[in-house]
């Protein structure tokens, strides 16, 4: 089994993680924009984003 691992493309795992993180960051941006919208909708002053 371990000898099989040597033949795996070392980049493929990085691509999987990149996809997960891209989705995660996308979700982050999505929730941030909802938060921003909600705070504006309810008349709060918008805080500066970091």
């Amino acid at each position, binding site marked *: 089994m371990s000898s099989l691992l040597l033949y795996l493309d070392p980049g*493929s795992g990085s691509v*999987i*993680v*990149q*996809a*997960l*993180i*891209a989705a*995660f*960051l996308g979700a982050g941006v999505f929730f941030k924009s909802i938060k921003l919208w909600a705070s504006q909708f309810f008349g709060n002053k918008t805080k500066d984003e970091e």
Partner: protein
Amino acid sequence: MSSGLYSQLTEKRRLIAHEEVQDPRSSPDPVAARILKPSVIPVITYPASWSFRMLQAAAVLTLDIQLKAIEKGMVLKDASAYNIQFAGPNPIFIDTLSFEQWSEGNPWFAYGQFCRHFLAPLALMSYGDVSLHTLWSAYPDGIPLPVATQLLPLKARFSMGLYLHLFLHASQLNATPRGGAKTAKKFSKQELTNLANHLKAIVKKLKPAATPSNWIEYYENDVEQAYQVKKREVISGWLKEQQPGKVLDVGANRGQYSYMAAETAACVIAAEADPTCVDAMWLDMREKKVDRILPICFNAANPEPGIGWMNEERSSVLERIGADSVLALAVTHHLAITYAIPFHRQAEFFFRLGKEAFVEFIPKPDPKVQLLLKTHRNPFDSYSRETFVAAFEKLFDVRRSAVLSDSGRELFWLVRKPGV
């Protein structure tokens, strides 16, 4: 070239400039299409010699260039730390051939390499110890993520960024993509931008580990004033007379004498073993916009070796830092007592590094030597001015000498003997 990326990056001195040499047929390689001649970097350094903040600056530059490239529909096809060099304290990207057109939907294939070359060593130097730049000698292609995550303490997992890009990443390295290439995720330009921005934010947030340093305030607290004044006066006079083009300051501390050398020399390498001092020097030089001095981490008793294939893929630091003039100020007693290196071997070392050298001798009764002798057994009985001079005179002629302190500290201006 036509995208304007080249001119944008070279104007800000972020990418190395090159000229196109006229005739590709002059190349020994028959398939050469174009020949590019890059401008010359005075000293080549590798990440094994960079302090935390230098590697951090190199990482930020790599990401900035990736972001600029994405804007123009390109990507960096590799994210190697060796693609960065330092011109003085400023990082510059030297691999003009790293840019390639991005095909819609592709991930950033250099992402894994970026994490090995930048994020993992930075995390280790932040959560572990600042001296871990030395790991590069063992891992020429960056720190493997499973190794880095084993070494990092538990609290590093609680940093969201490090968890995602190092720990989660390491756990997925041997995973195979489900469903094959057809169902693989398509990446958008925005996602690549988000990824680079996220990495940049994580890298910028990391701070160097607080490693105790004996040397950071050494000159302020531990060195007698009259001696310093005299020493500065002698060295300044000799440098003006010598007019060296390139100076190597061994044991530079905070660069006190490197700054002095930079008044006459076009290029000064400030080599110092304590990475905290190197970091402080680098910050200081960036702030003062001193572009003639390059600070590096350098342990004279164990210089960065040649690594990779045949030990020649990346040459040893000694092959890269030769100079017209070497400053060895208050270092020979450390080499002799702490590292048990006799004076004749030290003479060979400085002979190899420079055509001329200013070497300081610290006599045995001097308080600093006595301090060293408290914790180290005297490795050789013959620690004296006579053995020192005899050892160096085998390889060098003494052009001048000057006594610097009441304790008998003495500086020698040595010139390589012709024909040795």
